[in-house]
């Protein structure tokens, strides 16, 4: 590995350590904000594996989040598993579900794939609504854990892990295979890439991390119901974050989650009812002026009129 790469890894480690020390410094409110931020960042980074690197825009990743939340929740409350077992089980079930669903629907492309994934998430919501052992429509109440920092560190650790996986994708044969599929799947196949397997593994990885985030979320928030954890808007939010930061890059989705979470929090406290409007406006402006996301903006040397003008020209808007 080159020195630059080591420096980046060390830099990342320093950030994680700094964040690890954060709860000692910041307010309790800030800790809750950070837990939520980490969660959205995990979802955006895990979506990036299938949506960014592989180029399959999944609109159903909330299904994995919900399945993770419910698996962990049911094992915790109905079966009596300790959380240390219930959480990995949530990740594992979400991963297996993603693999099982992914194998057939990853044959679809573009809009058809997006619609199929959207349908999968909605279907899971209906399924959970109608199952007795999940608490059906009334939801599931978790026991209360009186150490909120557990959730902080768990979310941070999962975020670090999923970011490392994204970094590995940017540096590995497997990642090159995914990018080749994104760029031209027919060419990728004749070049010797087992495209069905690669896509399924990418989808399963994506599902595993979303499932883990869901598992932590369930225990953290102490109450889940189908509408809360299979909400389509969560998928939309995490895709916006990934696109805002830069899809297919290692840190873009994380950056997008950070900036947009902060912006939306600020707007909510400052503007209350108009918050959604401004949030929407920001997204429209970003898509128009910097469609490749924050990470590209930074790489190209920061804010300048020329950068925006070039994007407008290049994408013929």
């Amino acid at each position, binding site marked *: 590995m080159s020195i630059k790469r080591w420096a980046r890894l060390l830099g990342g480690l320093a950030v994680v350590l700094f964040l690890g020390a954060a709860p000692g410094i910041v307010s309790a409110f800030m800790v809750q904000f950070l837990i939520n931020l980490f969660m959205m960042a995990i979802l955006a980074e895990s979506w990036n594996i299938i949506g960014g690197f592989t180029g399959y825009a999944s609109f159903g990743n909330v299904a994995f989040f919900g399945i993770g939340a419910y698996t962990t929740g049911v094992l915790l409350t109905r079966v009596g598993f300790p959380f240390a077992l219930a959480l990995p089980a949530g990740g594992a079930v979400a991963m297996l579900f993603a693999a099982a669903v992914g194998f057939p629907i990853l044959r679809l492309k573009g809009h058809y794939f997006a619609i199929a994934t959207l349908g999968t998430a909605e279907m899971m919501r209906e399924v959970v609504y109608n199952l007795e052992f999940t608490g059906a429509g009334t939801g599931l109440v978790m026991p209360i854990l009186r150490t909120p920092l557990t959730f902080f560190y768990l979310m941070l650790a999962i975020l670090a892990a999923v970011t490392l996986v994204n970094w590995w994708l940017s540096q590995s*044969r497997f990642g090159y295979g995914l990018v080749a599929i994104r760029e031209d799947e027919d060419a990728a196949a004749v070049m*010797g890439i087992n495209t069905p397997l690669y896509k399924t593994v990418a989808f399963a990885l994506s599902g595993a991390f979303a499932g883990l985030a869901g598992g932590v979320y369930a225990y953290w928030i102490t109450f889940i119901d189908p509408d809360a954890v299979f909400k389509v808007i969560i998928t939309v939010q995490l895709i916006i974050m990934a696109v805002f930061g830069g899809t297919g890059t290692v840190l873009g989705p994380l950056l997008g989650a950070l900036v947009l979470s902060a912006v939306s929090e600020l707007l909510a406290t400052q503007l209350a009812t108009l918050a959604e409007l401004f949030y929407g406006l920001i997204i429209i402006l970003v898509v128009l002026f910097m469609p490749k996301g924050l990470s590209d903006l930074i790489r190209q040397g920061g804010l300048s009129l020329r950068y925006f003008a070039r994007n407008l020209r290049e994408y013929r808007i």
Partner: protein
Amino acid sequence: MAILQARRVTKLFGGLAAVSLVSFDLREGEILGLIGPNGSGKTTLVNVITGTLPYSDGDVLFRGGSIRGLPPYEIGRLGLSRTFQIVKPFRNLTVLQNVMVGALFGARGGARELGSARRQAGEVLEFVGLAHRAHAPAEGLNVPERKRMELARALAMRPTILFLDEVMAGLNRAEIDEAVELIKRIRDRGITLVVIEHVMKAIRNVSDRIMVLFHGEKLTEGLPEEVLNNPQVVSAYLGRRYAEQAHA
């Protein structure tokens, strides 16, 4: 000995036979020219052999073993590689990264690490004369450069057999001469080639043997001079009247 044997390969699109009962042997180390008017089934034949399209009937043996029904990636790993007539670059990658994908995957025994893939890709770019563009984004290449990159990617797969689908289309005369030289140098590396081409002068210069397809069927096969002077071939290309005049 024949390295590839096509046996009555047939591809139907609805009622239309795009390829019909085509049989031929490909000898190890040769350059086989594959010609025929537009729509005669050349590309379809390559698509079927390389697994991009399913067979309607027939079989293809590679080193004596059937490859019918194998997915494209397994055929690629066996050592059959191809270029596309309409090139399929990985647009957001650099030229070097495009070729690295070929080195990383491709035939068994290829590079499995980025470092060695990068080295191999660099060598291949040197070989095809595109090294100076290694770090350019693929979408910035002009047509001749794109054709070369397509060729470089296929070569980086370390193929045993290479199918070239109109790599000379859109090139000027000087570029065609270069391409002919390049194809001969590829053969000198021990790679067997099937070259689909429309440029007659080039195909005559480069091929050891030529096979002609017409309306999906094999019209004839043989040495370049005898095939290109065959009245049936002339008539297929230029119309019957011209052929009659030529032989009057």
